[in-house]
């Protein structure tokens, strides 16, 4: 039976970008459906009744929700298609899962503070973000990618935040690319992979989306 794969997505979403990247690097054909956040379609509401959020991968009619859950599912189902995203070694795999969750917690926590208008919260967000970036540089070390065998799960986890870096930089009035040479080099290497770069949102589009949200919320 031919696989039917649908991805319910939202272009600027860092979470939506993850399955896009995973599907693209493995060369899996799928139907992309862009969701309107203000007017969610019936399929999204039925496929993810709990959170009513993208991304949702629908594989032969069965929905899978949650960006990391989806990426692991893709890696397991299409294990014959390279690259293998999760490490083969169980301990390395567990470490990758732990760090991926940590990346989400830290970036959301610090990013939300950077977006605040109050100076104190903004500064706390910047400080937290700087610490986080240092941790990531240390984790990367001298490797070209976070994955030991090339572009992998952790690379997918972090690269989808990079289209949002321009927005963080403008809101926080600081530079990310300049201060983190190893990570900047890593970003360049990821973007040299065509299937990765074409799956990521454009940073200018992301910033314009952010401005639209700000305006709607009257900030």
């Amino acid at each position, binding site marked *: 039976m031919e696989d039917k794969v649908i991805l319910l997505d939202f272009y600027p979403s860092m979470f939506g970008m993850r399955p896009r990247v995973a599907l693209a690097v493995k060369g899996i054909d799928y139907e992309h459906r862009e969701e309107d956040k203000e007017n969610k379609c019936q399929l999204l509401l039925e496929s993810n009744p709990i959170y009513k959020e993208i991304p949702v991968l629908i594989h032969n009619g069965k929905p899978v929700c949650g960006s990391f859950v989806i990426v692991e599912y893709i890696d397991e*189902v299409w294990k014959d298609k390279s690259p293998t995203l999760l490490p083969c070694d*169980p301990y390395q795999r567990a*470490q990758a899962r732990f760090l991926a969750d940590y990346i989400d917690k830290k970036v959301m926590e610090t990013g939300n503070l950077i977006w605040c208008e109050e100076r104190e919260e903004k500064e706390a967000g910047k400080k937290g973000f700087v610490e986080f970036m240092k941790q990531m540089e240390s984790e990367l070390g001298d490797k070209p990618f976070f994955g030991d065998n090339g572009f992998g799960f952790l690379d997918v986890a972090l690269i989808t935040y990079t289209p949002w870096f321009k927005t963080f930089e403008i809101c926080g009035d600081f530079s990310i690319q300049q201060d983190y040479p190893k990570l900047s080099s890593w970003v360049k290497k990821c973007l040299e992979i065509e299937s990765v770069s074409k799956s990521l949102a454009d940073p200018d589009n992301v910033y314009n989306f952010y401005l639209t949200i700000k305006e709607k919320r009257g900030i």
Partner: protein
Amino acid sequence: MEKGNKGVQLVGFWVSPFVHRVKWGMKLKGIEFEYIEEDMFNRSPLLSQINPVTGKVPVLVHDGNPLPESSIILEYLDEVWSHAPLFPIDAYQRAQARFWSKFADQKVLESAWLTVCSKDEIQEKAVKDAIGHLERVEEKLGGRRFFGGDTIGYLDLMMGFIAYMLPVWEEVAAVTILDALKFPNLAAWKSNFVDHPTINGDLPSKDEMLTFFQWQREVHLQRI
């Protein structure tokens, strides 16, 4: 901990539901381990050494390699020790288990714990949220004996706090969240869970849990 040490250690805190899950997971799989109690109110240098990122328990140490986070530890155990699998084999069922385990912690446990740490309108909202989340879990469980089907598995361990810790929190917070009449599936599952031979002999003392969480409630209410 020096690298290259043989064996398995579990660093935990007696009342943590996250630690209990891992302990029971290892017992179900017949894994021998050494348990090391950590006083979370007077943390030892060991914990910051083996979990510098979050400083929390549980931490599994296997052959000198530390690993935190209960859900991640349980997956690791299943991958290294194939006997008595906790996870489903099918990829779609595994994805479902991972999704619902995040729901258990991020929604059910968070809202239930908030009822202990709060009062008045905040507590009322937390109770309402927790009941709403349990309605989802009730539907997910259906009439099955366990979330894993006929045998106890990963999702039962992740949801396990509902069976033995939630009643304690309800008593401490003086609220009702899991009404057996409204949640017949969960009420039946609760008994199946606490009566399971691996769980039954290894539950923390209810009186000790009550004393601990009553004290925790006082501490949190003072901060409001």
